[in-house]
């Protein structure tokens, strides 16, 4: 058993060292060299500190991330509370819909905002037509809106679980001791769910800070870290890999600090109360219940509205950048007239990446959950590093690492798959170790005791028992890989253009109709498997229970 764990751990560490740590080390190295390859220098950092543009870039990114975190908490916590404690009509459906924004591509939502409220947006032109001026949504306002509406489920999910994990007796005890309901919420409930709020909030912050697609669509000329890193590295005119490296290191530092703060805080506090009986739904007056219902549904619908808008707009005809009110499939014709290749690429790459990620992630998750040792602790830590690294930075590192030398990967499909696998690995590890935690270790011991070798036990007993959870993980990895933009845009080569790349270039250029069609395809590609798996997961759960 130990040998199996050691082999998995070592293999995983080697893989992560080659495809994650080594590329990142090269980015770090480049940030300390003149022009990225010359002698050692601190000049790249000095240039950033002296530059108002780059300081503005860092400031904008941090400001947007912080604001989005605050707003996501502001709508996420009440929504979680309503879902946990108020009898809202259609609660189950609402819960499913509320988790959708997490897997739908956020830059599509950003593009929807452009289509609706941009310079030539539907709403903008309509309002202007009847004489109502409308402010610009480009820059901070639009970016914060999109981040809030796409990332708030990160707050809702853990906080909802937190509210449901508070045993009914906890609240009853507080009430019995004379606390009024608001007093009890403030002194008992909120402190108990505080770690969940913090965990969710920091996730929003990190995701917002790293996100490339949303500012790429909405920033226009305003500086944003993730976009600037990309432009400095891949830009045609003003490429500066050294500055890109330095900005990357600063971005990783920000996300790493956020991650460490979260770990430190959560490590010290444990407020699980082993809920036996879930707290009862709050008795509310019809008026209050109606308000809660409207607010909850309102939040969720608002977050999904941009996606529906894109789906509808993709069916309208564009005349140049200007939208008309004529129906037609012209946009899709344009999208597919060139070739089916981008769509095919998206599906192929996502499939390979999803299978590879789960094949690598499941044994790691198993070892991390089952065999505590110094080595597996190291693996657990390294396996979480991709959380703190944006796709763009990882892609840059991969290019520096595998553009020359013994292993040349640039220009092919494999480097894209590697980037997806590394980026989604923390998710695969977390989800499979969560499943393993729920499996009784004595099941495996019983199998070994009956004469089956540990590795065969893992393959024939543990994996089938993990299967339902692994399938769910596989689909989620598939979806997020299919809509990946930040690493793809750096790594793709001519033969391996994906739908996201087509959409990005269409937005950059003037192909508004093309972009809308590509966005619609991305929504369908991500939403359909999710709905399929949702039914399957429900079925599996009912048979397991």
């Amino acid at each position, binding site marked *: 058993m130990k040998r199996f764990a050691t082999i998995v751990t070592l293999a995983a560490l080697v893989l992560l060292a080659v495809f994650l740590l080594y590329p990142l080390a090269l980015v770090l190295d480049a940030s300390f060299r003149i022009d990225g390859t010359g002698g050692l220098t601190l000049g790249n950092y000095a240039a950033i500190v002296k530059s108002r543009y780059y300081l503005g870039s860092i400031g904008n990114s941090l400001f947007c991330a912080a604001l989005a975190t605050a707003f996501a908490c502001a709508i996420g916590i009440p929504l979680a509370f309503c879902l946990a404690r108020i009898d809202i009509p259609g609660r189950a459906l609402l819960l499913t819909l509320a988790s959708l924004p997490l897997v739908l591509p956020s830059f599509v939502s950003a593009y929807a905002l452009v289509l609706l409220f941009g310079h030539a947006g539907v709403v903008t032109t309509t309002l202007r037509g009847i004489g109502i001026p409308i402010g610009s949504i480009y820059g901070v306002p639009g970016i914060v809106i999109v981040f809030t509406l796409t990332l708030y489920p990160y707050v809702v999910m853990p906080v909802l679980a937190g509210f449901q994990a508070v045993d009914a007796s906890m609240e009853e005890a507080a009430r019995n001791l004379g606390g009024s309901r608001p007093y009890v919420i403030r002194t008992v409930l909120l402190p108990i769910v505080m770690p969940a709020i913090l965990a969710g909030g920091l996730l929003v912050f990190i995701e917002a800070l790293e996100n490339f697609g949303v500012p790429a669509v909405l920033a226009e000329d305003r500086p944003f870290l993730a976009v600037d890193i990309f432009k400095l590295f891949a830009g045609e005119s003003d490429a500066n890999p050294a500055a890109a490296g330095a900005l990357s290191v600063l971005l990783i530092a920000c996300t790493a600090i956020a991650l460490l703060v979260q770990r430190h805080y959560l490590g010290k506090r444990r407020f699980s109360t082993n809920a036996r009986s879930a707290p009862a739904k709050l008795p509310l007056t019809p008026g209050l219940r109606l308000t809660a219902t409207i607010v909850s549904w309102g939040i969720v619908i608002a977050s999904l509205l941009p996606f529906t808008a894109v789906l509808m707009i993709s069916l309208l005809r564009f005349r140049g950048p200007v939208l008309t009110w004529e129906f037609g499939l012209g946009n899709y014709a344009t999208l597919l007239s060139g070739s089916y290749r981008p769509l095919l690429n998206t599906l192929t790459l996502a499939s390979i990446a999803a299978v590879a990620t789960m094949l690598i992630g499941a044994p790691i998750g198993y070892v991390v959950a089952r065999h505590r040792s110094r080595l597996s602790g190291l693996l657990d830590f390294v396996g979480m590093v991709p959380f703190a690294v944006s796709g763009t930075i990882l892609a840059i590192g991969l290019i520096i690492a595998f553009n020359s030398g013994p292993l040349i990967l640039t220009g092919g499909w494999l480097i894209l798959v590697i980037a997806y696998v590394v980026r989604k690995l923390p998710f695969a590890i977390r989800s499979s170790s969560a499943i393993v935690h729920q499996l009784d270790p004595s099941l495996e*011991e019983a199998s070994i005791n*009956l004469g089956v070798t540990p590795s065969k036990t893992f393959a024939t007993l543990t994996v089938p028992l993990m299967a339902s959870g692994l399938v769910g993980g596989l689909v989620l990895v598939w979806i997020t890989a299919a809509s990946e933009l930040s690493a793809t845009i750096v790594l793709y080569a001519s033969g391996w253009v994906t739908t996201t790349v087509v959409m990005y270039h269409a937005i950059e250029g003037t192909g508004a109709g093309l972009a809308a069609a590509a966005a619609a395809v991305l929504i369908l590609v991500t939403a359909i498997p999710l709905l399929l798996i949702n039914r399957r997961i429900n079925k599996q759960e009912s048979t397991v229970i």
Partner: protein
Amino acid sequence: MTAIRIENLTRTFGAVRAVDDISLDIRHGELFTLLGPSGCGKTTLLRMIAGFVDVESGSICFDGRRIDALPAHRRDTGMVFQNYAIFPNHTVAENVAYGLRARKVPAAEIASRVDKALERVRLAGYGPRSPHQLSGGQLQRVAIARALVIEPAVLLFDEPLSNLDAQLRTEMRIEVRQLQQALGLTAIYVTHDQEEALAISDRIAVLRRGKIEQVDTPERIYRMPQTAFVAEFLGSTNMVPGIAGAFDGRNTPVAAAGTEFTVRGEVAAPGAPVLLSVRPEALRLRDGSGGSLVHARLALREFLGPVQRLHATLPDGTQIRISALGGQALDLLPGAPLSLAYDPAQITAYPAP
């Protein structure tokens, strides 16, 4: 039928010596129980025999053959787990057949052996069922069948009955004992329940902090505990500290709790501090005289049906418990004086710690 020899077995976790230099000889066909409070090392010792915990030093032999370096899946032990560990993705029959398949037994033989094993645990016909259709007691029987069917060298039980309710537990322990005797298998049984241990074991080892306190038959463990810990752990005894007096050639008087107890034999040098173990059933309520006597005052009476338990106060205020039969009519109020008769041979003395 396997004899097990364990020599100088040690295992530490950090600073804790979970199993501390334990040596044991377990005979052919014996049901041998490891008994002790939680954290005494009994489960660690069992898991070392099964191969789930590495041996740090010392050796384990089955019939003179060292097995402690073998991986767990080649030790040929059949283990029954505390939470049954029935594979939820297999049927009952598949669960029982699991070990036979691993041993590459021909399919036809598997079917007949599985049927026989299920019959033995009174689950004939349950083969095609799914585990979640079975009750806790039935799952426990499947676990036992699964361990028996491979005809292992040794059966290992890790607190197998602790998840069952009290009545089922007493029924199942009889079944376990009868199966083990019928098949003549050597079995090691871990429990923290002293009654269970006394009821089914051929011999018991009482463990404390990774060390063996005493190895003996149930009767001798109960009647002649060699240490104060064993006396206290088996049955709820009264432990009374005292000072030994002069040995009179037959008994030793011990001054304790403001009165004097007479103990058979020479227990300690005069003036030495000792600890007396006085079992609740060793004290009898007497109105008349005769035998050795101590005086106490009734504090509280618990009527428990078949027995009643009296809580009494010795002259210096020490609380003791006395067992009396439930049928005995006692018309006593708290505060009433009690005369308690006892046989000096039934009181054991230990050197004070």
